């Protein structure tokens, strides 16, 4: 088989991988009507009533939301520093963070998490679950 044919077949294969991944992502889309924390479902309003509303400074300006620290403490998770937290977004993106980072953050009403001192990669969008896991 010639070099040109191999390169063309490889390019087609890559497009097939991309297309099938796009289909998989579309099929597994998640609704963000509520947020599950440690297995319990909450609406955004409930979470805003549960925790303290604070403003934090980020490199994108001020952000207002419910303090994750107060939200987690009030959602009856004993010993928050003993766990790691997996924040899951509707687009399939998730980030695992430790309590030291988690307690600095907020959850906005859009719903997105912001942490003042981390790269934007940790600012998960469309949050639908915060899984609490043993370290």
């Amino acid at each position, binding site marked *: 088989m010639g070099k*040109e044919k191999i*390169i*063309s077949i*490889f*390019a087609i294969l*890559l*497009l097939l*991988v*991309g*297309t099938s*991944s*796009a289909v*998989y*992502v579309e099929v*597994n889309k998640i609704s963000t009507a509520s947020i599950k924390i440690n297995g319990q479902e909450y609406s955004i309003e409930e979470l805003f009533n549960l925790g303290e509303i604070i403003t934090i400074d980020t*490199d*994108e300006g001020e952000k207002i939301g419910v303090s994750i620290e107060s939200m987690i403490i009030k959602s009856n998770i004993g010993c928050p520093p003993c766990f790691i937290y*997996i924040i899951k977004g509707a*687009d*399939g*993106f*998730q*980030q*695992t*963070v*430790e309590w030291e*980072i988690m307690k600095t953050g907020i959850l906005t009403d859009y719903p997105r998490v912001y942490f003042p001192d*981390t*790269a*934007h*990669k*940790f600012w998960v969008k469309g949050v639908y679950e915060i899984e609490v896991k043993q370290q």
Partner: protein
Amino acid sequence: MNKFRLLAGILAFGSLWGTTESYIGSALDNAGLPSGSIMTCFFAMSFLLFSRLYFKQAGMQLGMGVVAGSLKLFNPFVAGCHLCSGIAIMVEGAVFEAIWFFISRDLKELKSINIQVSLGIISAYFMFIVGNIVTQILTPVVQGIGFYLNDLIVFLPRILARGILPALIGAVIVPIIILSLKIDIKLKDKLYYPTALGISLICWFIVIGNWFLA
């Protein structure tokens, strides 16, 4: 090729790439457009491929990635994830270098439109997905937060899916760049260094200079 001439080329093309990433990339991001995909396939591919086929020097694109990535890292003025983008840009340069290392620098061997389109797809797709994967790993490591493999595994299908747009635009960009090389562009030796250094200085000034003005 003269080493200083090559260094000046790396600096000029890398600075142009970094400046477009800092400003156009951020503007696309603010407009809610897929800036990573558009920047990778359009600007990065154009600068990398043009310089590769014009200078015909291996290693140049790796250097351009380092220059462009550094410029993005030093850009505190425009909103966006500078660390993630800076790492992604450097990786894109390295991936391009790795792919094109095995491909002839002789334009005659890249004559077939079929091979041009295929190379556009392969280069842009790999640059985007490898850049993205390495960013997911290195950003938390560099920040000292810790990397969790499972975070990457669950996000992998989306990264692979997002690579489609850069791949398709890459398929169009490569033939266009190769066609543009038929225009005889030659810069006189006397003008080469002032032009390369002038472009670099302007680029670094408008990015870094903003840091002092902000």
